[in-house]
Each structure stands twice: as structure tokens, then as C-alpha cells.
């Protein structure tokens, strides 16, 4: 626990799982969950580096702003998802491909 790499490995695994969720899930809300995992992974890195490397609170600040951004992003994304649902009756992103060639 007093070792930076234990945090970094955790964050890497969390990031990969989040990425996998984003890449493979069909449900839009599930993709959103993946995004949150990725943001959390990033936050862990920021705070860990802030404790082990830079020794100041800038990393915490950035994390606070990321958390805030995540909240805003979740609200707007869910509003969009709701519209998608009202429009099509489902929220599967792989079927929402009107922009394809």
C-alpha cells in the first residue's frame, strides 16, 4: 500500500475494464458506466501521483474537477439517452447508426 505501482496497476486494470465496457456494450447506459470507470482510473492516478511524486494538492484539484465533469457529463448523456429511447424505443448504440455510409 505504500507503493506507487500498486495504485498504478489497479488504475490500469480499472481503465482496461472500463475501455472494454465502452467498446463492447450495446446498451448506452452500460457504456456510460464504462466511461465512469475510465474516469475513476484516471482519478486514482492523479491522486496517487500527487501523494508520491509532486507532493502538492494539484492532483486533488484536477480530480475534483474531473468528478464535477463526470456529473455534468452523466446528466447530459442520460438526457440524450432518454431522447434516443423516446425516438427509437431502445438504446442500443450499434443500431443507432443512421450516420453510416
Amino acid at each position: 500500500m505504500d507503493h506507487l505501482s500498486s495504485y498504478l496497476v489497479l488504475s490500469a486494470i480499472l481503465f482496461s475494464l472500463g475501455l472494454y465496457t465502452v467498446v463492447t456494450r450495446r446498451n448506452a447506459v452500460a457504456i456510460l458506466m464504462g466511461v465512469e470507470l475510465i474516469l475513476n482510473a484516471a482519478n486514482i492516478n492523479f491522486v496517487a501521483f500527487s501523494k508520491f511524486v509532486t507532493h502538492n494538492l494539484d492532483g486533488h484539484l484536477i480530480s475534483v474537477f474531473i468528478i464535477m465533469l463526470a456529473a455534468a457529463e452523466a446528466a447530459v448523456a442520460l438526457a440524450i439517452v432518454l431522447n434516443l429511447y423516446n425516438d427509437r424505443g431502445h438504446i442500443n448504440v450499434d443500431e443507432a447508426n443512421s450516420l453510416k455510409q
Partner: protein
Amino acid sequence: MIKLALFILFLPLLSFVLQIFLGRRFEDKKGEWVSVGIQFTTLILSLIMFVMMMSKHDPGFSLEFHQSWLDLGLFKIDLGLYIDNITVIMLNVVAIISSLVHLYSTAYMEGDVRYSRYFGFLGIFTFSMNGIVLANSLFMIYIFWELVGLSSYLLIGHWWEKDSAANAGKKAFITNRVGDIGMFTGMLIIATVLGTFNFQQIAERIHEGVWAANAGMLFGGIEPHKLLTIAGVLVFMGAVGKSAQFPLHVWLPDAMEGPTPVSALIHAATMVAAGVYLTVRIFPFLTADAMATIAFIGGFTAIYAATIAITQNDIKKVLAYSTVSQLGYMVMALGTGAYVAGFFHLVTHAMFKGALFLASGSVIHAMHHSLHKIHDHETDAQDMRNMGGLRTRMPITFGVFMITTAAISGIPLFSGFLSKDAILAGSWAYAANVHEGWLANLHLAWLLPVFGFGAAAITAFYMFRLIFMTFYGEAKRPEIFRHIKESPKVMTVPLMILAILSMFFVFTLPSVNPISSHGWFTELIQSPESAVTTGPAFELEHFEHGLHAAHVPAMATSLIVAALGLLLSVLIYLLKKISAEELAQKLGVLYRGSFNKWYMDEFYINGIIRPFLKGCGAVGRFDLDFYDHYLINGWGRNAKKTSRGVGLADDLIVDGAVNFSGIIFQWLGWTLKFIQTGKIQNYLIFVLIGAALLFVANVF
């Protein structure tokens, strides 16, 4: 004290916001009392400040608070408050008049279509007036100066359905703009040379010689003293506009189209005094030449407006010209160096002129009601020729009118006597002792006391003419007279309060000598040192010595001329020994000139506006016929010919190349379009593959 001042400044703004946004909703529920309450709160706060000032009793007291507002490297603008005795007294004047007018308006404006908006505008006016009073810099004063202009415009045009009201509003606004251009230019000159707008700093820096060092270099070798004179006179131009000095006085009589309480608040007691207040603030850095100019403008305005007031028949017009004349007095006092007297007259005049306007409002209110009762919508309720004998029906209004007329005419025991006397003594002393300024060089300085005493006599004459025509004699229209009633309590109580405030002892306590102005006021307000070091300044010490000598003869003369005016008025209008009509016939040209305001409006229209419009038309035609037709269009025609040739080349060579590359990319796009699946996750995979490849490429 700063916090108190901030509250006094911003509470009226709160009243404005509440009335504008919520006023309509509370109109039936006595919503105006919100504004009245707020106004009386500021009155109480102002009185607290007043008590604090009195307990300090220090003529040099001052307090400054400022916050940085705009910071452009070398040039910084601070906004802030500056509080000294003058500020406190002015705040009290504004608060007293404003709160009484609010109270008065609840009855006077009852049932008006835009009732709540009216109170909202009163609120923003009070806010901006307090802003002027509390300002610590020329820049801040300018901001609130314009706000005051705006609220004046809104209130004059309150009944904008009437064309005359709408036009009067516009006239006031535009005329003020003319003055403000001068003020702004003056401000900019000062700020350019000294790098600050702050009053204290301006005076300090001029005193330290910064002006003398910088002015010439910055303004093409002009002599610094001359530039300071120009700057002072330019800033004073703002005061000329706002305080209705000749030649920009024309808007004030027209402004009487607004509701009468507004006339009392804005166009008699406070806003028009703002110009005088500005002159008070810039007093320390006026040069002798600038002072002479100011004095002359003031003196001329005083007598000029007084002569017009003699022949007017509209009760409010008489008072309006009287206001212009009295403002001229104040300005003349400041110009002649009678700083205390000028400011003193500002305060006393605010009280008695406010009362006069409100009392005339009371008369008009009664007339309106009476006319309404007999279903007469043709007769002018403000025309004195329709009144007469009202003193029996409206005793309180009459009493107030008598007291305040006595005050304005300079009759002992009333406040106007003290301040007017001080001004006249000042002008006398100036004429006797002046050695600097162009008035002295031309030996014209004696004109000023002549103007002053002449105006004093005329004032007494026309004010008593007003009283005799309105309150004495037979009722000229008995059917109207029958329905005249005294106004309700909310209107008469403010009148009585203001009448009491027009007594002499209010300003001389603890002394009760009716012919000496010595008291708390003159103890607390003292002339500031002149900061001018670039050249001849006004010699204050010399002047004060002369003032002492001039005091007694000036007082005697002023009493005599006032008595003369009064006597003449009694003879003509009360006892009818001399017929007014015959006199008018005999005076012929003079009478017609005075009746038509010396044709000033006509001069503006025919002498300035029309030629200007014609000039504009000519320039416009030049623009259209020559500039547009030959230069611009000709250029265009030529360019068209040239471009046709170039276009041909473009089509063949450049377009050919472009089209060729287009075809290539079209083909490329057709082949690549198949990776655009519309599925966002596919794109993401591509991105990730790209990222991984980049990493690999970077490592190996």
C-alpha cells in the same frame, strides 16, 4: 460609515428592482409603500450619518473607500466612495426631498396607469443621485451622471402618450448630451495628463506640479495653465447642461411636462443641483480664468431666466425659470469664489424650491379635481389666469407658499435670505477685489453684482406676482373655485416639513441671529485650498477679507432691492394701481421678448438645428452623387471588367487543377467510405488500434 453609505446608495436600487419586477403584482396591495419604506429607511440612515458628522464637528473630516474596477497596466480606474461633510449634507438633502416626494406621490399619482413604474423610476433616480454625491472620482460621477440623465428622461416622459411630454424627455436628454460631451472631453484631458480620475489625487498631483510638467508635452506644447483652464471649463460644461445654465437651459422649463413631484425632486431640488455639486468638487483645481467664465455664465443665467419668469402664466413655468435663475446664482457664487455661499444656497434652495414645487403640485391637484368634477377637460389646470383667491380654500398650501416665497425672495427670518445674501456679498467682494481672470482685465467684474441684485429684485417681483395671481383677488372662474379643496394629509405634511426646513434657524443653530449665517453649517463647510500652481489662481485670502467689508452694504442693498420688487408686485397685482396690460403695451419689445423666452428655442431651431440638417443634406448628396457614383461605383465597374478577364484564366487553369485533384479524392473517398459504419464503437476500436500502433512505433 462606509457601510452606512453603501446601504444608502444601494437601498433605492433595491426599491427600483422590486417595483420594476414585482410592482405590477402588488399594485392593488399598496405596493408603493415598499418604496416609501425603503426611502424612509435611507432617510434614517442619512440622519444617522448626519448625527455622526455633527458629533465629530470637524471641518476637515473625510473618508475614502475604493475598489479597483478596471486595471489596464499603467492606467487604473478605481470606483469608490468619498465622504466628507459636503457629502453627508447632500445625502441628507437627497434623502429628505426624495422620501417626502415619495410620500407626496402616493396621493398625487394615485390611480396613475404606470403607478408602480413611477415609483421604480424614483428609486433608480435616488440611487444614481446618491451615486453622484458619494462618488470619489470624475469617472464614477460620470457613470451616475448618465444614470441620472436616464432616470430624468424616463420620469419627464412618464406620460409619454402626450407628445409634448415625450418631446420634452428627448429634449432634456439631448441637451444634456451636449454638455456631457464637454465634460467627458475635460475628464479625458485631466486623466491623460494626470493618469487618475480621483478628485483627491487630481488636486494632489496638480499641487505637486505634475500638471505643469506633463501638460505641454502631451498636448503639443500648449501652455499648461491654459490647458487647465480649458479642462476646467470643459468639465464645467457638464454642469452647464445638468444645472440648466445659459445657453443649455432650454430643457428645464420643458421638463415640467413630467409629474409635479418629479419636478420638485429632480428639476428643482436635487438633480439640477448635481451640476453645482460637480463644480464644488472640481473647485480646487479651477484656474482664475475658468472661475471668471463660470461666474459670468452663472450671473448671466440668473438675470436672464429671472426676466423670463416675469411674464409666464403657467405656474410651473414660473417656478422652472426661477429654478434656472437660482441655479445661476449658485454657479455665480462658486465662480466668484464664494464656495460656502454657493453650497449653502444649494441646500436652502433645495428645501424651499422643493416645497414650492410640491405646493404648486397641491394647487394643480386641487384644480384637476375641480375641473374633473365639472367635466371640463379643456381648461389648463396649471394656468394662473384661471386661479385666484385660493387662500381661503387651501390654507395650508397658501401658508407654505408664503413662507417659501419669502425664503426665495430673500426676506429676513428665512433661509433664503442668509444664503442669497452671502452670494451677493461674495459677488460684491469679487468685483471689488478681483485681479485675475479675464473679467478683471476687461473691467467687467461689476456686472456680476449688478446681475445678482437685478435678479434678486426680479425674483421678489415675480414670486409675489405668482402668489397674488393664485391666492389673492377674486376667483376668476367661480365654477372651478367652488370645488377646490385642500389636498390630503400625505401631501400637506411633506409641505409643512419642508416649510419648516426653510426657516433660518435650521441652518444657523446653535446661533439664532436671523441676519447672520454663522452656525453649524458655516463651521462645517469651509473653502478648500486651491491646488492650482501652474499660473494665476484665485486669491482666496484676499477675497475673504473683502467679503467682510462687502457684507453690510450687500445686505442693505439686497434688502432694498427685494423690497422694491415686492412693492412693485403689490402695486400691480394686489392693489392694481398699475395695470399690467398697459405696462406690457408700453414695454412692447421687451415684454414680447420675455414672454417668448427671448426666442432661445427659436434660435436653436432656426440658427442651429435647421442649418445643421441642411448641411447634413448637402453632405449626404455629395456622398451619394459624387462619392458613391463616381468613386465607389466607378471602382466597382473597373474591377468587374478586370475580373472577367482573370475569371477566364481561373476557369481553365486553376479549376482544371482543382477538379483533377477532386476526382482523385472522390475515388479515394469512395473506397474508404466502407469503414464508416455509423457504429461508434467501431470507430473507437480504430482509435485504440491507432494508439497501440503509435506506441509500438514509438518504442521500436
